[in-house]
């Protein structure tokens, strides 16, 4: 009982008690309150992302149903880009969106999206075109390669992005677009093989987008059975450090419960979601020295503790008194009346407790 450490379990139990205690009065309200924030949050979600300045990239993973909103967002975002901000780009645009065929709910045509995509050329995977204009942006391309189980890596798609040079010389990628090659029949067969064996589907990216493959390829893999939904849903998270890709995390966007069920996709096409992530800055250590000084300078004013109510102050005396009072039946009515009087009045009535007991 004297567990002085604040373990969660204890707190949890205590909260349970407190909830039980207050449930009768607050329950109705509480339900409302708990419903509300959740509802509000889902709206915040998009409200926050529209300015495209938030640092939490986790909010930019878009499900099917949100796809439309997301695209609208992209439009508004590129509209915003016309304005050339001179702001220091520390954690600018942490996300980009994919090109390719990404919204099967909107269209079922397999061709148009892909016909516009440039065919990847493995011999020269990167074409870097410098813009001559002042914003010193340039286009960068790098190839995604994939492998089925232990097979060799083959090209699977192309990422296109704009390289932005910050005022302090740092280079970042923005406006990432992705075009996925469709799986050939042979590849589909291989993928089916992976599904049967619950084997790994691997992808890899160069660790440096300017001079691929950089020091080494960074690769990632997923159990093939995690990908199929309607089509094949995939999710890339690229962790960037300037023009270096530190890591690519690849997987399905949703859950993949164990044991994994064998499911062959209805359509052999990928729905790709891509997120670019840059490093967060650690929160600064709080500094209290200034505040402490201000506190001292404020004319040495002592903050008085908040005045407690009469009941809070004297409940421990009043209860036994009340109990004793109950014994004397003939006095009962009078005393209860007086207690009520006392309660009704403010603390100056404290002196009355003497006569009460008498």
């Amino acid at each position: 009982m004297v567990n002085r450490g604040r373990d969660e379990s204890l707190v949890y139990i205590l909260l349970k008690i407190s909830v039980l205690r207050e449930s009768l009065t607050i329950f109705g309200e509480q339900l409302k309150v708990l419903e509300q924030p959740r509802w509000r949050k889902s709206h915040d979600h998009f409200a926050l992302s529209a300015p495209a300045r938030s640092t939490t990239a986790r909010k930019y993973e878009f499900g099917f149903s949100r796809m439309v909103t997301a695209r609208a967002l992209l439009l508004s975002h590129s509209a915003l880009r016309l304005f050339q901000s001179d702001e220091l780009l520390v954690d600018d645009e942490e996300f980009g969106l994919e090109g390719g065929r990404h919204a099967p709910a909107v269209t079922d045509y397999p061709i148009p999206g892909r016909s516009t995509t440039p065919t990847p050329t493995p011999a020269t995977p990167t074409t870097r075109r410098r813009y001559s204009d002042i914003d010193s942006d340039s286009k960068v391309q790098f190839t995604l390669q994939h492998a089925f189980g232990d097979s060799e890596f083959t090209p699977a798609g192309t990422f296109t992005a704009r390289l932005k040079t910050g005022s302090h010389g740092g280079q970042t990628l923005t406006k990432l677009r992705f075009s996925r090659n469709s799986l050939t029949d042979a590849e589909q067969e291989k993928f089916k093989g992976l599904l049967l064996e619950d084997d790994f589907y691997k992808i890899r990216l160069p660790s440096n987008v300017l001079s691929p493959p950089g020091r080494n390829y960074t690769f990632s893999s997923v159990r093939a059975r995690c990908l199929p939904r309607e089509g094949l849903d995939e999710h890339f998270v690229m962790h960037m450090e300037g023009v270096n890709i530190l890591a690519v995390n690849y997987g399905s966007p949703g859950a993949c419960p164990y044991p994994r069920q064998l499911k062959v996709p209805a359509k052999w096409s990928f729905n790709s979601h891509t997120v670019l992530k840059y490093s967060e800055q650690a929160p600064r250590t709080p500094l209290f020295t200034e505040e402490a000084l201000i506190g001292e300078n404020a004319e040495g004013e002592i903050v008085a503790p908040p005045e407690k109510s009469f009941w809070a102050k004297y409940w421990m005396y009043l209860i036994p008194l009340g109990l004793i009072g109950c014994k004397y039946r003939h006095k009962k009515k009078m005393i209860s009346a007086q207690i009520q009087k006392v309660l009704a009045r403010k603390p100056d009535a404290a002196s009355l407790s003497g006569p009460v007991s008498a």
Partner: protein
Amino acid sequence: MAIRVFFLLLLLHSSSIPVLSLYEDQVGLMDWHQQYIGKVKHAVFHTHKAGRKRVVVSTEENVVASLDLRHGEIFWRHVLGDKDAIDHINIALGKYVITLSSEGSILRAWNLPDGQMVWESFFTVRKPSKSLLLIVTDLKVDRDSEILVYSNGNLHAVSSVDGLILWSMNLAAESVEIQQLIWPHGGDVIYAVGFSGLSQLHAYQVSAKNGELLNHDIVEVPGGFSGDMSLVSTETFVALDATRSIMVSLMLIDGKISFQQAYVSDVVPEFSGVAAILPSKLEGMFAVKFNSRIAFIRVNDEGMLEMVDQVEDLAAVSDVLVFNEEHRAFVLVQHGGSKIHLNVKLAHDWNNDLLKESIEIDHHHGLVQKVFLSNYIRTDRSHGFRALVVMEDHSLLLLQQGEIVWSREDGLASVIDVTTSELPVEKEGVSVTKVEHNLLEWLKGHVLKLKGTLMLASPEDIAAIQALRLKSSEKSKMTRDHNGFRKLLIVLTKAGKLFALHSGDGRVVWSLLLQSLRKSEGCPHPIALNIYQWQDPHHHALDENPSILVVGSCGIGNDESVLSFIDTYTGKELESVSISHSVVEVIPLPYTDSRERRLHLLIDSNKQAHLYPRTPEAAAIFLHEIPNVYWYSVDTDNSIVGGHALKHNCISEVADDFCFSTRGLWSIVLPLDSEKIIATATRKSNEVVHTQAKAMSDQDVMYKYISKNVLFVATVAPKAAGRIGSVTPDESWLVVYLINTVTGRILHRMTHLGSQGPVNAVFSENWVIYHYFNLRAHRYEMSVIEIYDESRVDNKDIWKLIVGKHNLTSPICSYSRHEVSTKSQSYFFTHSVKAIAVTSTAKGITSKQVLIGTVGDQVLALDKRLLDPRRSANPTQAEREEGIIPLTDSLPVIPQSYVTHALKVEGLRGIVTAPAKLESTTLVFAYGVDLFFTRLAPSRTYDSLTEDFNYALLLLTIVALVAAIFVTWILSERKELRDNWR
């Protein structure tokens, strides 16, 4: 109403940080502390009257200590820093111990009686080189003696009174490496002899008074030198040529060198192979080692060499000891069966033994490695000899009159790894406890205790009670106890020796020098690596004893490894296997076979996995689980973190069912020019987490992201990898990663700008705490990251958690994309940190404390609540109730929260925690040069009554209550009777 009272209590508790402290009389009740010095490198006996009882030693753990020759106790001891290795030790002026350390850059004088440092001198050293120390006495100048130090091409003369540098001389001009400093007795001339290039020999004649170079002679010796050189007398020394088959004897007369060469095979007919000169200083002689033999060769006045004797399997030779003004003696140590033979011989008379003794020595000490000789005067005024012997297990023995006077287990100063083992269960009839053998003693003890309780005890009685409490037999029993406080601490030392220490009083229950980790043909440089729990029977095979696995490797570049299996009850080696692959990593798997042996996966340098135990049953269990086995590797040189899975059996000529090839699943390639991995941390595999959810004050529930497969990695800018202050804040940064090691997903990545290592980190439950240096604030900082799973947010309502609509029991798969959120916060911390650990309890209910090994070699217990990222400047009432402490910028260091109270664990290297059976209690073992053990209760012992609980008062209250009930009952009966009569 009870709830309100409860809340008030809770408020009271949450506003005060629990401080754990001891009363003075509780010291030693549940903790013990042992002091060691490490493997002795040099020993100097003091011959003056006052110091005769002592020996001064320097050790490989950088300790200089003065030991009592009668009992082996430590008079005084100083642990120098980690990188401050002691090269030489000597005694000057009869009252100062002089040490030369850090490759000849620091010279210190310690007062011999009490070990106070008298003075300290520094010499600048640019590159490490051989250093020499010579003490010149009788200089007839102010009764001072001069200390000559050679380091890094410079010869310095230092006054032994105050450490002032008298003169310095640069000898580095011709790139001469000085090998010997010679001081012919009675003169004020010093000779420095050294090589330059391959074959040039230089002799400098220097005035000891002012450092004037008197003479410089250079001789070209055909055949060159191998580097070995031994001083035979003040004007003769011997070296080996580059092929190690020709001996060169050099004479130094008035600063002129003359030399003679002789083939080793001419002097020693049986010679074959290569020779090496032993470093022992023998008068008029030197010892040459070849194969397993040692030949003693005498050098006569003309520089002619002549073999005196050769000895097979000689263990060690001491330096020559001067006694009785002109006699010189040394000792030879040889092994013979379980005995060692000591032969003390006179330097000029080989054929007569001054003393011959053989002593029985426990085979757990291994072979003799070093011997130091000292003499004393016997009661019959003849000369006696005593020898200080350093053994293979780093223990130190004093031998005198054919007996072991004392021995010290100084191997325990270099602990590599620690694990705990349960003691045997107390069985019916086989009671290990000794019944109180004397009824009178027993009665006396109880009378004393009663006196103590009734406060009638005199000071002597109190001391007696304290002594009784301290050596209570209860805590040192050899059986399991109900609370799980009694355990065996199995400790592996650098020498390859295992010790089982009793957690009650720290005594050595058994010790074992592992045969497999001793030098052998196939394994010339064995290194002990780690201990793992091999068999821990608790369900099925209860009649079997638990056992542990010790993994050793045969050194770098050698593909052999050794495994040893040891019974932890008896301390016997059950089996030892020599395996033909290297061991880079050992992964204990969460599967056991029918004998409760844990399956282990050993990864070799070719990234092949080998399964142990090699039984078909284990293979069957493992094959079933192969798809779910993943492992990761961290390549610090290339800054690559990689994940791997197992594929199928190895492809090799010999079919091996227990070998599996692996394949890479993911990789994280950190740019070499901006990030260098300096620290990693993972959760302890046996850690227990009680609650997966954390209830917030607003009745929300946060789900902890609890996965055994999370890795913490800290990287710094390569420039900033050096010591603190070597870079500006702009050039240094610290990046921390939380990585899921199954999928390679980076859960969190965060940069601390302007920060630098060294990083010490500890990972537990869903949080990691790490310590680093903030260059901008010029202070150390500690940061905390807590990681929460957001994917179960649907169950956020505490009601759903209570009525059971949660999915806490569903299996969690790393391939599901869990949304995670992190919270982090940084705090300033006063100390630099040597080691960091976290308390662990049996069920994980008790709140945690972070144990910090501070720079002062103490262990500080810091409540985890202080390192809560949710601390805010003005917590709300609800948050206060939850136990959130108002935010401060630095972590408080409360003197009472030092676990080690007044003691120091010198040279602290690691802290190990183990849960006791009692949920509130955790066992803490800190090791370095010293060992320290204690019990901690981070939230107080809420589940048991403390030792000082007042049972008497409780009893008294109960008796009084019962009496009162009776009295009132009788009274009321009477009253009722009276009323009825009315």
